[in-house]
């Protein structure tokens, strides 16, 4: 009874002839980048890191609103330990450490994102051109890249910064102009492969100009690589800025930066007796770099996709 009552067509409206109809594959919805975003969202560590990084950005943007005291003014006793008034204590001339830390996020983020933006533009453009045109163009760009890569990176930065004079903008531009060669090489390698795929010939046969082949056809296909590389670049730039400021070649006092706060630790008294003057800066650098690296890892896994 049960069976016979179900022995009818599930959908009477179907016509029972077979015609060859190709159907749209509805299982795989959305674009490549949506797929990457979805894979990224599944990665817990990366997602937590992203949230923390967003907090960091918000703190930097909203620094004037959320910091309890002006960062560069003497507001309390000298070298006071943390208490209910100054949560992270004060420094040698009575400035609030917490406020300086929050303003320091601005420096770190401006330098890191700014320099990465500069080197991504340079590296991507040169990498696309080098890989696509080949021949003498390629050889020239690659030799320049090698020259850039064969200098001791940090020394060149120190020399340039001391020539131009240390400031947040100097550091940003110097890091930006020195950082592009690895990305350029990476992109060139990808372009060498992508340009052999038929859709590039198809684009040529459709009448695309060379620049639209480069920027409309090839660029979207290397975007994910750029994204991953840029993320790791940000972590690196945060570290480099901190090192430079530590050495006094980065952001100039009295402006606050994580690196120049850390340079307090050069004094043995501070190191042993006043941990509030250097531990918070150390921790925030550690957290910022870790978080950005986790985001980068998550992105890389999402881009590489099914291999995991």
């Amino acid at each position, binding site marked *: 009874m049960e069976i016979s009552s179900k022995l009818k067509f599930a959908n009477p409206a179907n016509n029972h002839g077979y015609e*060859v109809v*190709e159907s*749209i*594959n509805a299982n795989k919805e*959305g674009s490549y980048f949506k797929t990457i975003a979805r894979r990224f969202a599944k990665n817990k560590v990366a997602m937590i890191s992203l949230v923390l990084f967003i907090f960091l950005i918000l703190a930097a943007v909203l620094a004037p609103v959320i910091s309890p005291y002006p960062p560069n003014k003497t507001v309390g006793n000298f070298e006071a330990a943390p208490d209910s008034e100054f949560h992270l204590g004060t420094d040698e001339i009575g400035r609030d450490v917490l406020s300086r830390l929050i303003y320091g996020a601005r420096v770190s983020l401006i330098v890191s994102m700014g320099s990465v933006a500069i080197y991504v533009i340079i590296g991507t453009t040169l990498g696309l051109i080098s890989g696509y045109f080949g021949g003498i163009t390629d050889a020239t760009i690659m030799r320049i890249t090698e020259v850039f890569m064969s200098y001791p990176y940090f020394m060149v930065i120190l020399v340039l910064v001391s020539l131009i004079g240390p400031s947040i903008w100097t550091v940003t531009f110097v890091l930006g102009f020195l950082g592009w060669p690895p990305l350029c090489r990476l992109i060139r390698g990808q372009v060498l492969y992508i340009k052999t795929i*038929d*859709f590039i*010939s198809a684009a040529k046969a459709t009448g695309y100009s060379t620049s639209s082949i480069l920027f*409309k*056809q090839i660029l979207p296909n290397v975007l994910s690589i750029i994204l991953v590389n840029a993320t790791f670049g940000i972590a690196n730039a945060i570290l480099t800025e901190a090192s430079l400021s530590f050495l006094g070649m980065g952001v100039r006092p009295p402006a606050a930066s994580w690196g120049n706060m850390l340079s307090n630790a050069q004094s043995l008294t501070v190191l042993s007796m006043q941990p509030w003057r250097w531990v918070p800066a150390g921790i925030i650098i550690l957290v910022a770099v870790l978080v950005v690296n986790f985001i980068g890892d998550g992105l890389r896994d999402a881009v590489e996709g099914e291999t995991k």
Partner: protein
Amino acid sequence: MEESKILEVKDLAISFKTFEGEVNAVRGVTFDLHKGETLAIVGESGSGKSVSTKAINRILPKKNTFIKSGEIIFEDKDLLKISEKEMQGIRGKDIAMIFQDPMTSLNPTMKIGKQIAESIIIHQHENKGNAIKRAVELLDMVGIKNPEKGSNLYPHQFSGGMRQRVMIAMALACHPKIIIADEPTTALDVTIQAQILDLMNELKDKLNTSILFITHDLGVVAQMADRVAVMYAGKIIEIGTVDEIFYNPQHPYTWGLLASIPSADLEEHNLYNINGSPPNLLYVPKGDPFAPRNEYALEIDFEEEPEMFKVSDTHYAATWLLHPDAPKVTPPIEVVRRREKFLNLKMREVI
């Protein structure tokens, strides 16, 4: 078939520079394409069929290719002489191309609709909205169900057959005068292949475009072509209407090709093959390059390359067998049967 020539290729010769030396990929190819006709170019891999058609669109790699001689006349212009800028205006607009592998011929990061619209934007300077609207119409025309939805999808969401339909829509976007189809069905399975060929035939009749159809599948040729050119070792060795090539072939190589089609209705189950392999075009042999594999080779074949002998106004073949003083030979039995069968069919039609 109209008599107006839309494309003339004259004595085209193309070489590739390699480490080992110069590869003579195309060694003097001459043919015309008429308005509204389909000319099929058949031949083995490496016979130069793809290279000569890519030269028409000038998409051969510039670095190691050089064109030794020849003219490609399209609308009174020699496509080999005009500037790259001018060529960009012709590609996609007047001469469109359909590629072999639909899996790799579409950009994976661009929506289908946008890929089609792009060539309309480039050549007809339409705004984006109109171009996308036109793309949707084209998708509908090539038989994509739900064209609005389809235009918003990415290539990986389409099957191979659908992607080839998209390629055809892209090729048709600007009403090209010539479509070059480079083995458009080789990567598809047989049912989809039949659908794509039907679609191309239907659209060709509707839009009156000329098609240059490159293939190594003689079954496809019979279905598509008005005329056929057979290529061997970088030269056209026989050219004629599809009936002439299939039922009255003159060149021993064409005989070999036809005899090696597996046939369902012939009583004999032997499958013929052409012994040997095509010559290495690094060292083009003296005389007729086909001679070492040719069971009908004459002594002169090893000395001198044959010229094109006229069989009829539309039919030419490059074999010394057509020389008035050459010994008379009979083609292989399969070819003879084929001819008889055809003549019988013709007789019946007449009665």
